[in-house]
Every structure is written in C-alpha cells, then in structure tokens.
C-alpha cells in the first residue's frame, strides 16, 4: 500500500515544529520513528496534510539518570534504552518491558515519545508510565506543561495532547535499590502486541512484607490501568502462595475487557490474572 500524498517539513527547532503544528490546525502529524504512523498512513487510517519530522531535534535524544529519577527524551529509540549502561540498574522495570517491544528492526527506529503519543492500549511503555507514576512533559503554543501519565491516556490512540503539542520527555521517579519488580506479557507470537501484560513493583518493608505496591495492567482496557484492588490485597502482606492467589483473582475481577478479533473478553480477563500472578512471583524471586 502506497502512502497518501502529504507535505513534509523537517524543522531544526522545537519552536518551529510547534508553529507548524499550530498553523495546520490538527491536520499535521508528527513523525518520530514512524513505526506506528507509517502503517496507519499505508492503511489510510491517518491522512495528515503535513508530516513534521522530528528527526533533526537532537535535544530530544537525551537520557538523564539522576537521584530524582530517569528522564528520557521523546526521540530516544527502544534500542537506545536497551543499550544504555545505567538504565538497567536505574530502572530495571522499564528495561524489562522494552525487551518485549516489537522486533529488533522496529526497536532500531521506534521511539519513546512515539509510543506515548500513539497510545496503543496494548503497548508496553504507556503501561509502565502509568504503573510508575511517570510525568510526561509536552510543549505547545501556550508553553510547557507536565501531564501525569494517569491523566495522559484517554482511550485507544487518544491522549491529552492538544493539536499543537509535542512530547519532549518522560520522567520516571527514582527507583530504590531494594525495590522488587516483575513484568510479564503474553502474545501469541514474539513481538506481537500483548494480549495482556502486567507490570508490578513494591518496596519490601523490614519484615519483607509488601509496601507501596504498584500493579499495572496492559491490553485489558481502553488505556493502561493501575489495579488498586490488587494493590490493596497485597499491601502489608508477605507474598506467599495464598496472597498471590488472591491477587490473581482480584486482577481478573478488576477488569472487563471487550471481545475483539484477537481474543475474547473472558480470555483476556483470565489472562490478566495469570500475568499478575507470574509477575508477582518473579518480583518475589
């Protein structure tokens, strides 16, 4: 499928990119890695009048690891995350999730900002962002604003981004060294979007009991979810078989996924319980 015609611009500054978006009144699309946008153009799901290529904005390619957390520029590729020496210790949950993103060639081009803006409900990074209380920084005509990940994802392929706004970076709060985590995903073939996935972490207290549980669910709703019901079940408890079984049941009970061509809602409802169970076992080590 050949792409529909469009105008193309490759601005040298973020301000110029914002001005182009603003001037096109919602008819322009940003081109980051293109790994989701180009198939959408091929299928005519999207037909923007202008593509604004962010390829020259090297200031969006920075990864910063600091005491207050990890900040990743929008044009950082999956491959850059996996190859970054400090990120494996500074945010192991992020790295574990990114290993499930698509295939080798896609990870060479696809970007952090592209994934957040695309907002596929089955994508890994939006789920990690919601699970980890990430902040997403965007810039538009009105200036810069920071949007909490939980407020950013509004539905399938829908976000809080305005037509003139560009994601510049995502910030993940600091990761304590003793934090336990797990990421578990099920897809029919390697590299496919998840039928369901769970991203979990907690900070064990002195007795080894769960404290500060964060349980994220991917692929089972219109947007990634935090499962507060599961967090309530495990906070303050030891992660023994009985607690994990209750967490599994609570995860299944907490979601109501719709049927689609990939799986029935009932199957996904069952699967998220299994993913949470496996992720918790992996976290408990």
């Amino acid at each position, binding site marked *: 499928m050949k792409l529909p015609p*469009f105008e193309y611009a490759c601005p040298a500054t973020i301000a110029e990119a914002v001005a182009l978006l603003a001037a096109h009144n919602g008819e322009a699309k940003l081109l980051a890695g*293109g790994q989701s946008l*180009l*198939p959408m153009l091929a*299928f005519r799901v999207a037909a923007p009048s202008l593509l604004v290529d962010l390829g020259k904005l090297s200031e969006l390619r920075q990864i910063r690891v600091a005491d207050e957390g990890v900040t990743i520029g929008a044009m950082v590729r999956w491959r850059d995350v996996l190859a970054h020496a400090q990120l494996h210790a500074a945010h192991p949950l992020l790295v574990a999730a990114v290993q499930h993103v698509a*295939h080798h060639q896609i990870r060479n*081009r696809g970007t952090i900002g592209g994934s957040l803006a695309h907002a596929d409900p089955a994508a890994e990074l939006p789920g990690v962002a919601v699970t980890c209380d990430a902040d997403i920084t965007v810039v538009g005509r009105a200036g810069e604003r920071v949007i909490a990940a939980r407020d950013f994802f509004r539905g399938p392929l829908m976000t809080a981004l305005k037509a003139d706004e560009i994601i510049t970076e995502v910030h993940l709060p600091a990761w304590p060294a003793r934090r336990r985590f797990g990421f578990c995903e099920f897809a029919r*073939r390697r*590299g496919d979007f998840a039928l369901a996935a769970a991203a979990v972490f907690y900070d064990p207290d002195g007795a080894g009991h769960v404290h500060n549980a964060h349980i994220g669910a991917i692929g089972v709703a219109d947007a990634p979810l935090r499962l507060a019901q599961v967090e309530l079940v495990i906070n303050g408890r030891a992660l023994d078989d009985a607690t994990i079984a209750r967490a599994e049941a609570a995860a299944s009970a907490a979601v109501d996924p719709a049927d689609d061509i990939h799986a029935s809602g009932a199957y996904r409802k069952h699967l998220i319980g299994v993913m949470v169970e496996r992720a918790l076992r992996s976290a408990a080590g």
Partner: protein
Amino acid sequence: MSGTRDITVTVNGATYPVSVEPRLLLVDFLRHTLGLTGTHVGCEHGVCGACTVLVDGDSARACLMLAIQADGRSIDTVEGLGRIGQMNALQESFHTHHALQCGFCTPGMLMTATDLLQKYPLATDDDIRRGLSGNLCRCTGYEHIVRAVRAVVDKRKAAP
C-alpha cells in the same frame, strides 16, 4: 499533490543526489528509483521483514521509512553483501545450509542477520531466533536459517 524534494543518500557506498516525493517509501526508492530490486516488498506495513535494510548500520524496515528520511544517511542493501560467484560468508552459509527455498524472505533475513552478527555474541540459538523474530519465512520453518547463522557465529569464534 506535494512537490518533490532534493535529498542525498548513500547506498552501498555510492552517493545519489535525487529528487523524491515526500510520500515515497525507502523501499520503493531503492527498487524503482535506483533499480536495486534485491530488497523485496512483502507486506508493506511493517510485519514481514522482507524489506529489511541497514540504515547507518542498524537494520530497519524500508517500508516503514520514507526515502526523504534517508537524506544524509547511509543505506546498505543485499546488493552490497556480495554477488553471484562472490558471496560473503553469511550468504555462503545460507547456501550451504539450505536456508532458503523460494528466496523471497532471504534479502531481509540476510540484512537482519548482518546487523545481529555485528552487534551481538549470539551465544544461543534462542538469541538468533529472537533476533530474527521480525522476519517471516513461509518455506523453511526457520530451522535451516538459524543453522546458517549459527555456522557463521561458530566459524567466527574458531578464527577470531
């Protein structure tokens, strides 16, 4: 209709100043504009991997990239690996191990494997399978392709 734009792209070491429509895909630029038909067009939406080329040394799907995005970049295609009678070690290994039947996926397999071989130790067959997961083959069942890549890794280890 949008007009054309002037770009300069290096392909297999040769530099081409060309004029392209913004919507032209890199794979169609390679095949139609330059006549390099070794890179195959399969699904045209980023699923099959038949169009894999190297962009500044990293494997990428040429159907998920615009030619205009290749401005100032260096592209390597299967034509750059070797030629009939002068195949490189990976191509020889595909031949020896019967790693192709119809050959449609082969250019993409070769380019992805080239990227994997230059970046990773590929210590286990699972590493090779994981690396090639973005390339579909409908003939071989993959076993012989993994064997062909494995043989190159082993030979490299034997003669560092």
